[in-house]
């Protein structure tokens, strides 16, 4: 883990992003021009700044993937871990340091394939971690293989004749597994994306923000979805506010996805509950 010096955020709006980056050392980044991951990073930084968090108190944890490289570029405490298991590492950090703001950045393959087990258990515990899952429907970093969110029938380098598998809805999964704040937005809907990231950060318990993003380099190319701009425009066309989405028929829902706050519940948080156990039984060897 690296610790950063605490400094005051600049007043100039345009300097905000730069203030939170690790310039020089870590740039240029690995992302393709036009990749949506950078949009999510911008939204995240603006919200952390707006909420006035002390960045020494923020821990960014990620696994492996294009999405998971995000914490490398931002100047918070950061922990870059194994593919799929960021949430297990994050649970360790949060449990050891319950007062820290722990944020996990993950991709669809990272969170839902190799990390699927850790994902559902973090939801189940309702541990106070915010997870931002950047869903680009494919494995970007390794060159375009199918992921658990590659739509049935879609092409990837490991589903060259169309995906024969069913795909996950990460938000449904998280809600069912016990997450207490679940929202979805896209890299087109930046103001909304910022709002749900901000609310997720402020939520006590396990919160998930699914950010629909473009991997035009692989998903776009293999599925004839055009360049970054046309993919991002397609999110504008296919995103439906959740209230409206719920009233749509199954046929109308094909190719569409809901955005907004999908579920929010109040449940006791894991670190708090464990503290109660300690408080009730602690005797310090007496």
């Amino acid at each position: 883990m690296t610790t950063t010096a605490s400094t005051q955020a600049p007043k100039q709006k345009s300097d905000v992003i730069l203030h939170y980056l690790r310039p020089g050392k870590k740039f240029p980044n690995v992302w393709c021009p036009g990749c949506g991951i950078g949009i999510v990073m911008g939204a995240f930084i603006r919200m952390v700044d707006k909420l006035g968090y002390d960045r020494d108190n923020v821990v960014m944890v990620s696994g492996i993937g294009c999405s998971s490289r995000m914490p490398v570029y931002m100047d918070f405490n950061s922990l870059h871990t194994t593919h799929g298991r960021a949430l297990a590492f994050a649970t360790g950090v949060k449990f050891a340091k319950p007062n820290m703001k722990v944020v996990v950045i993950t991709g669809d393959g990272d969170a839902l394939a190799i990390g699927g087990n850790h994902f559902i258990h973090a939801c189940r515990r309702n541990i106070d971690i915010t997870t931002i899952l950047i869903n680009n429907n494919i494995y970007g970093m390794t060159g375009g293989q199918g992921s658990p969110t590659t739509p049935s029938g879609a092409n990837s380098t490991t589903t060259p004749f169309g995906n024969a598998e069913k795909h996950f809805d990460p938000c449904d999964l998280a809600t069912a597994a016990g997450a207490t704040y679940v929202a979805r937005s896209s890299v087109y809907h930046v103001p909304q994306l910022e709002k749900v990231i901000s609310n997720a950060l402020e939520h006590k318990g396990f919160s998930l923000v699914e950010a629909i993003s473009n991997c035009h380099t692989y998903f776009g190319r293999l599925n004839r979805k055009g360049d970054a701009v046309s993919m991002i425009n397609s999110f504008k066309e296919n995103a439906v506010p959740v209230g409206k989405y719920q009233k749509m028929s199954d046929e109308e829902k094909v190719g569409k996805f809901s955005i907004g706050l999908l579920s929010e519940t109040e449940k006791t948080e894991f670190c708090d509950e464990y503290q109660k156990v300690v408080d009730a039984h602690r005797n310090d060897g007496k």
Partner: protein
Amino acid sequence: MAKVLMKGNEAIAEAALRAGANNYFCYPITPQTEVAEYMAKRMPEVGGVFLQGESEVAVGNMIFGAAATGKRVFTTSSSPGISLMQESISYMAGAQLPCVIVNIMRGGPGLGGILPAQSDYFQAVKGGGHGDYRLLVLAPSTVQEAVDLMILSFDLADKYRNPVMMIGDGMIGQMMEAVEFPDKDADPKPPDESWAATGAKDRKPRIIKSLFLDPVKLEENSWLLHEKYERMKKEEVRFELYKVKPENEFMIVSYGTMARICQTAIDELEEEGVSIGLFRPISLFPFPSTQILEEATKENVKALLTVEMSTAQMMEDVVMAVVGNRPVEFYGRCGGIVPTPEEVKEKILEMQKTYSK
């Protein structure tokens, strides 16, 4: 069959098909993902099974499941992925299941890097999982040899009912070379299924397991496995000699593509009047210990040099093989940096100063 130009990873994939391995499970990881991508296209064409698992842990167990049915099955991965398969590899060895696992190694430990390395020697040869077991481990140095060993691996896996691992550094997977495939056996003999879980209709059920709670039974199983490993040591030692002659003063021991680089160094050293040869182990388990000892103790040999893309792993086996009869020195680079012929040459010239009175 005519020669075709192929990338190592794709040639390995095609070789498995020629060996009748129609069941492939995988998880993407650089630098072997091309095997998965090749198989995703080819398996449906041959009516075989291609499945990208949700992780290498899943893949290891998918292989167990498919192997238990008596079918030829394999997977490919790279170092961190192979680490995740160790549990199932141990279980397959314990349950005596044949399968082939290919590790296109990258630098480690941990996430390491994605460039070629040979740093998983211990993991492959000494047992990366728990328990008293061994893998039969083969290491090709050319794409053609990768094809040949891949086909052989399936036969050896069946012969011993044991997992076989083929390890190649990232270069083997990524480089393109002309290869020739043996013609597909027109009438491949079906693998021996006398032990497999094929449905217990009209016969007693067969039980495939590695669990033996009775210590006597577990010990029995462990000695049974041990006997197989001893048999491998007798029957499956493979190696190649390059310019090994009675007058040689030095001998390099090196495997995989590293050995090819050493050949270049040896050619150049020869021109400079240094008498030197190469011992290239092809089977890493069983290790050609007796043969190395025999060559090392030839009258004129002054010292051995092991060259590896690691921080001296195989060297321990070479030291054990020569049992103190000759000095063994080491030269290696790691982290994805490959020793150059010049570096190897320099090391040998240095050794010449030390050992030639």
